[in-house]
């Protein structure tokens, strides 16, 4: 059973993976596992917010503010699914509990 991301969790980029921007998005590639994923422009913005300081809740609220015409709940779910996928593919890492990321 997959662990669901909590709003208080902080995520950071896995620096062993490469991030390569193209026209309207970017590739994430893990040279070790071979995992490769293309993320679109919005995905790039979300990925870049994962700096180890912002929580999942902070990120979803920030994204919701930019998409006022879509329901907050829908955005929150979509962002969490996206982040969860990047965690699963190990492009993002969960910060250890107790580490405030600063």
């Amino acid at each position, binding site marked *: 059973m997959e662990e669901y991301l909590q709003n208080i969790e902080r995520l950071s980029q896995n620096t062993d993976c490469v991030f390569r921007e193209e026209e*309207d998005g970017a590739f994430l590639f893990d040279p070790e596992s*071979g995992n490769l994923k293309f993320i679109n422009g919005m995905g790039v913005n979300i990925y870049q917010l994962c700096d180890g300081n912002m929580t999942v809740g902070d990120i979803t609220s920030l994204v919701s503010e930019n998409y006022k015409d879509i329901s907050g709940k829908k955005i929150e779910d979509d962002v969490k699914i996206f982040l969860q996928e990047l965690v699963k593919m190990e492009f993002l890492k969960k910060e250890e509990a107790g580490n405030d990321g600063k």
Partner: protein
Amino acid sequence: MTGNNAEYQLNSIYLYLTDRCNLRCRHCWIEPLYYEGREDNSSEFDLRSLKKAIEDAKEIGLNRVKLTGGEPFLRRDILDIVAYLHAQNITVDIETNGTLIDKEIVEALKVNCVNQVSVSLDSMTEEQHEIFRGVKGCYHDAVKGLSLLAGSGINTQLIMTLYKENVSEIERLVELSSRMGVGSVKINPVMPTGRGKRFFEKEENVEFGDLIKIDRWIEEELMSKYKIDIHFDIPIGLKSLKCIRTRQLFECNLFNIIGILSDGTISLCGIGQTETALNMGNIAVDDIREVWANNPILRKVRTDIPRNLEGICSRCIFKFRCRGACRACAYGLTGSLNSPFFVCHEAYEKGLFLESRMIN
């Protein structure tokens, strides 16, 4: 690591029915013997060994066989082989030069539910096709074969080998295919292996920068104009982003394919015809399951690809998906299965390989 590991399941066999051909194509990587008639050839594998190999291979995952050659229809018992494979529930694809296809053959292929027949045609200009394929009269025979197949409802594909001089024929062949009801067009730039070497020596191959331009033109204009699927075979690393995200692309299936040459030799795809060091046994005496599980060449390929690919392939973010494009071609050119694929290597040398697709 064993042959039963899901990633290394033997799904597909390239079956070289004969080493004879009734044409003398200037680009052919197999360099078959020229032969007109449909006589029997004692050096070709017998049906009994083939059946044993197919039945054994089915136990480790086989579900698809591509019949190729030489010209596969030169082999007398091709229709028996097709019927046998169909009875074994195996998906059958055939690659042919189309010149020997007649109504009876088409009927038999239909009855046995052949999945796809690919016919080679390089130009709408009779003279150009015949200079390339090396035999007078082959243009009309090939077009007739293609039309019989497409008209019968069999999923037909036109395969064009591309070199400098026939670039202007692309659209005409696509138009013909679309008009005839051919399912798809596959365009393979000529490779510098087998007879294809001479194209490169004489600089008759399409330049690498132009390959990329042709790819984009096909994708942006030709496909929508003719509403037909066109596969332009250049490696993923050189494709457009849209194409990478939405289409099935050129990938080496070496982990799931084995070749059986016309004399029964078990080989890495078809390369064993010219590179005998890559031969792994013979279906007359060896158990294909054992070869698949334990042969040192296959074991090495499974460890080395993609992790030990060299040059630009080692730095490419698509290497796990692409696996260095055609490893057989790389081997034919350099004697190493790990060497970079020449198209991406040349593109990189010329500054045409995008930085965003490389690591380090």
